[in-house]
């Protein structure tokens, strides 16, 4: 079973929820899909003993065969090639690794070569797995593809998604059985929750809400959830104690048995929710 934790808005508590759930779920895997800035390790404190480089295929031009016809530059949708009268320039950081350039090259002057863009790191038992994009690289999607290879059948994978609702989130969500949308009772929280809710709906993934930083009046989120028929699975109060613990690398489930129990209850509901049982 694959559970995605996403939010739209950054800083609502995705990592708190995802890492907490991973800790209280038996036979789980925590998969940090926020490859631009993975941070689950700060709380789970795994010892990463395994790693694999993430590589993409980018074009390499053989200038001795190249006729400078320009077909590769014309077919490239990402402007990753330019053909000058006597030389082809490649811009590997713009390449999306589709291979179209080598397909259209009639002279056969293009081969594809490996280029590292990041790394996957995992602990010995595969409980904590994270993808990390190298500094300066703009496209992390291929890392997400590689991350999913580390998800083991029969285990419950909790995917800590990147913020926003862009390609990286869509890619993380693909093949997930249920989505937990983490939000906060603010106009920004609601704004981005709407986008996230629309995304999971479009992708046909059942979803529920964790309302973090809940206060006395949470109607801004509650009204939306009622309208959209989205169950609120858990409310985490706006609490100085939780924030203090978090800043010290301690999750609510580690700090109090009450939170361990509440997250445990949520974890127990997930298989049913993933199969469409009402919360």
């Amino acid at each position, binding site marked *: 079973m694959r559970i995605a934790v996403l939010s739209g808005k950054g800083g609502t508590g995705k990592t708190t929820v995802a890492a907490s759930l991973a800790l209280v779920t038996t036979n789980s895997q925590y998969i940090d899909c926020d490859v631009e800035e993975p941070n689950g390790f700060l709380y789970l404190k795994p010892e990463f003993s395994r790693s694999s480089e993430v590589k993409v295929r980018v074009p390499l031009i053989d200038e001795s065969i190249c006729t400078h016809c320009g077909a590769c*530059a014309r077919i490239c949708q990402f*402007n990753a090639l330019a053909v*000058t009268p006597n030389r082809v*320039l490649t*811009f590997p950081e713009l390449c999306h690794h589709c291979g179209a350039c080598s397909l259209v090259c009639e002279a056969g002057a293009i081969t594809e070569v490996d280029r590292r863009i990041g790394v996957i790191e995992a602990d010995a038992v595969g409980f904590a797995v994270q993808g990390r994009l190298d500094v300066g690289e703009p496209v992390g999607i291929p890392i997400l593809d590689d991350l999913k290879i580390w998800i083991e059948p029969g285990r419950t994978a909790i995917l800590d998604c990147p913020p926003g609702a862009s390609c990286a989130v869509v890619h993380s969500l693909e093949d997930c059985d249920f989505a937990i949308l983490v939000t906060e009772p603010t106009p920004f929280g609601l704004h981005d929750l709407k986008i996230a809710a629309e995304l999971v709906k479009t992708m046909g993934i059942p979803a529920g809400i964790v309302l973090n930083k809940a206060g006395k009046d949470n109607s801004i989120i509650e009204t939306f959830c009622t309208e959209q028929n989205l169950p609120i699975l858990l409310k985490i109060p706006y609490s100085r104690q939780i924030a203090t613990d978090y800043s010290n690398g301690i999750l609510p489930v580690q700090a109090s048995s009450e939170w361990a129990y509440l997250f445990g209850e949520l974890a127990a509901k997930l298989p049913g929710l993933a199969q469409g049982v009402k919360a």
Partner: protein
Amino acid sequence: MRVIVTSTGPTIDSPMDPRFGRAEYFLIVDSETMKATAIDNASRNASGGAGIAAAQAVIDARVDALVTGHLGPNALNVLRNSKVALYEGIHSSVEDNLNQLKAGQLKPVATGGQPQYGQGGGMGQGGGMGQGRRGGQL
């Protein structure tokens, strides 16, 4: 001489567009007759690599010179590998830019000597020494 000037409009009296990759139009002007042909900049709204695509368009147009505002590093890298002469334009009409070019008044764009090919080029010398000064109250 055939010159491309980046332009905010399709006619020679339009202001020069200081953007290169995201310019509205490329105006191909014959410097003798001052006859202009406008090309719509197809890469204006590209999500990335607009400068590279624009440089490709300039090369494909087989012109002798380019007058524009600012060339980014990728565009410069492509254009260095062509015979197109590069000039920094002035904030005025395309026509004024052409007249200045003919009068030898436009500044050539520094191409940094030897061309650098695509990715991986780029050398720089970083200098910089600072002397800290504490505020007077300390």
